[in-house]
């Protein structure tokens, strides 16, 4: 019994998830780390291939690759736009929805629909909206950017950041709505009695009260953003124009699967995981501090 601990039933109940984590998460992650230190390519079962240890060669190749540098710069631009925009809009809209008297259910569903719609379908709509002769440029008329949004090296990544913000917003609004249910109404009443304006009540009561939710929203937005793939793959035709919207995960796909260099892709993936962990940790320390 000691082998199974004091609560063997608990061990049995948690075993499926533990196995799931081991097979789906721990093993691939460990294998990726191993690959990143070896000269590795995918081979047929039974094929006699050598995978020699190459030390930090793959990491050196990743860190000196101009395409990788550009991808990380692109993702930085994406995060700088997407994370604050997501957090701010989600909070403001959640507060507004929380107070809405009419059509609350409709509005909640309306915000949530893009989140549950397949990216491929939504990307198709955005392509029609943002191409040179699309609706957005037709409305803007002479103010339309030239080159157009998705083929403009300065606008492609910001457009993707706005697209992802719009698509994910419904989920983050729901998180904030749940957090808002836990804010005591007495706090608002006290603030009102003290003469606080609507803005002061929002800034001094709502924002601090939902800080744990904000920490979660920021970290989730950060992780989702760092794993950006579908949008540059579909919306800008494989990271275009000229690599201006390539993301690290898109580069991993191109190098690892298309070009048969999974060792390079693994090293890039490990660096991405470390980067996200560090930024998420810093975020958490900054946002959750009291």
């Amino acid at each position, binding site marked *: 019994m*000691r*082998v*199974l*601990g004091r609560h063997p039933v608990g*061990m049995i109940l948690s*075993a499926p998830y*533990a*196995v799931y984590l*081991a*097979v789906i998460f*721990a*093993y691939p992650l*460990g294998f990726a780390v191993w690959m990143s230190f070896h000269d590795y*390519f*995918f*081979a*047929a*079962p*039974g*094929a*006699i*291939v050598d995978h020699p240890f190459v030390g930090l060669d793959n990491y050196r190749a990743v860190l000196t690759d101009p*395409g990788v540098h550009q991808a990380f710069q692109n993702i930085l631009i994406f995060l700088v736009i997407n994370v604050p925009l997501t957090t701010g809009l989600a909070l403001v809209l959640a507060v507004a929805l929380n107070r809405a008297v009419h059509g609350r259910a409709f509005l909640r569903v309306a915000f949530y629909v893009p989140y549950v719609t397949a990216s491929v379908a939504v990307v*198709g709509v955005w*392509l*029609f909206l943002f*191409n*040179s002769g699309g609706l957005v440029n037709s409305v803007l008329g002479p103010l339309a950017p030239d*080159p*157009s949004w*998705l*083929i403009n*090296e300065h606008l492609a990544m910001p457009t993707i950041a706005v697209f992802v913000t719009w698509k994910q917003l419904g989920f983050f609004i729901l998180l904030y709505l749940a957090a808002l249910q836990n804010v005591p109404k007495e706090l608002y009443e006290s603030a009102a009695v003290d003469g606080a304006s609507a803005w002061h009540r929002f800034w001094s009561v709502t924002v601090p009260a939902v800080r744990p939710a904000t920490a979660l929203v920021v970290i989730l937005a950060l992780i989702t953003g760092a794993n950006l793939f579908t949008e540059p793959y579909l919306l800008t*035709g*494989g*990271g*275009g*124009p*000229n*690599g201006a919207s390539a993301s690290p995960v898109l580069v991993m796909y*191109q190098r690892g*699967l*298309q*070009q*048969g*260099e999974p060792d390079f892709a693994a090293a890039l993936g490990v660096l991405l995981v470390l980067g996200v962990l560090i930024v998420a940790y810093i975020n958490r320390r900054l946002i959750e501090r009291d």
Partner: protein
Amino acid sequence: MKRTLPAAVLTLTLALAAGCDGGGGGDAAKANAASGPITIWLSNNQEELAWGKAMVAAWNTAHADQAITAQEIPAGNTSEEVIGAAITAGNAPCLIFNTAPAAVPQFQKQGGLVALDTFDGAAQYIADRTGATADQYKSPDGKFYQMPWKSNPVMIFYNKGLFAKAGLDSEKPALSTYDEFLTAARKLKASGTAAIYPAPSSEFFQSWFDFYPLFAAESDGKQLVQDGKAQFNSPEGQKVAAFWKTLYDEGLAPKEKYNGDSFGDQKAAMAIVGPWAIAVYGDKVKWGAVPVPTSTGKPAEQIKTFSDAKNVAMYSACQNRATAWEVLKFATSKEQDGELLNKTGQMPLRTGVAATYPDYFTKNPAYRQFADQAARTVEVPNVPNSVAIWQTFRDAYSQSVIFGKQPVADAFAGAAEKVDQLASGS
């Protein structure tokens, strides 16, 4: 001790997962001699599927003990990714009738392909059927890991209606030199349509439908890489690049990916396509076809172009390879090649296609010029790191020709240096 069980579970999981990597393979000589049922994959193109099903039915009728099970290539981003994954998993079929020549070096490196030369008379069979063109499909070790099957030699398709609207001769348009092509393109743009609309996106294979056909024509049939050296950083490559750059700089070819079929939707007056387009556009567009242009306007009978071929390869997971080899010969016989031509309009990679199937070309004269062109095709180079080489070239092309961020000479010189290194296998 409390951590013993989780540790044991993790160890077992890792061992099981690692174990998945170790089986399969089998003895190659034994597999080469074995006969029995086999599985094949076919392209999901409707016309090819129809041909494949009829071919399989014909084989199965006569070989009940060596029946073929055919299925479409499973869905994925690209067929090559699906096949690569199947090789790694050890569940690739015996034959795939849609193997891209550009992917063969990678599949070979993975240990996923069977050298066809290991079967008696195979090299001779390929040489007799395909002639000298077959040499382009040999791997650097001198062996055939793919059976040259069919090509779609690309030409310039043009829309007669849009040409007439722009005041151009719609029956015999002057498109043989770069200057003539650009003059026509400017008139087309003035009439409100894009002249030509190749995908300006950065996927590695897009250069097969803009730069490469014209480079093959301009250089009298050079491949992108020959004798381990990049060929595009040459006067011919520069001329082709300058031609396309003019089209992009003047807005004659849009820089934005079209969300659909620009030629079919009549948004572009020209397209670079193979004979498959005849059935696709049919009567929807009144079209004509001419060879790709060259700087000096070479005669049509001297023009070479990209083959856009798809081949058949035998995969090492196959346990009944003797049957697979017989099926391969059956499926590429004169009779089955004729059926393929009939059902798909694609050109079997065999010598003298027009002379071999005269009745077909009498009934379908539109296909004749593609059959003539099929005799003068250039394949992608069969070199290590093939896909990485094409991506390197595409990036340089995109950077300099399409978006003009770097002089063509600098971009091509940098890419050539990297390509030389990749082609050497490092």
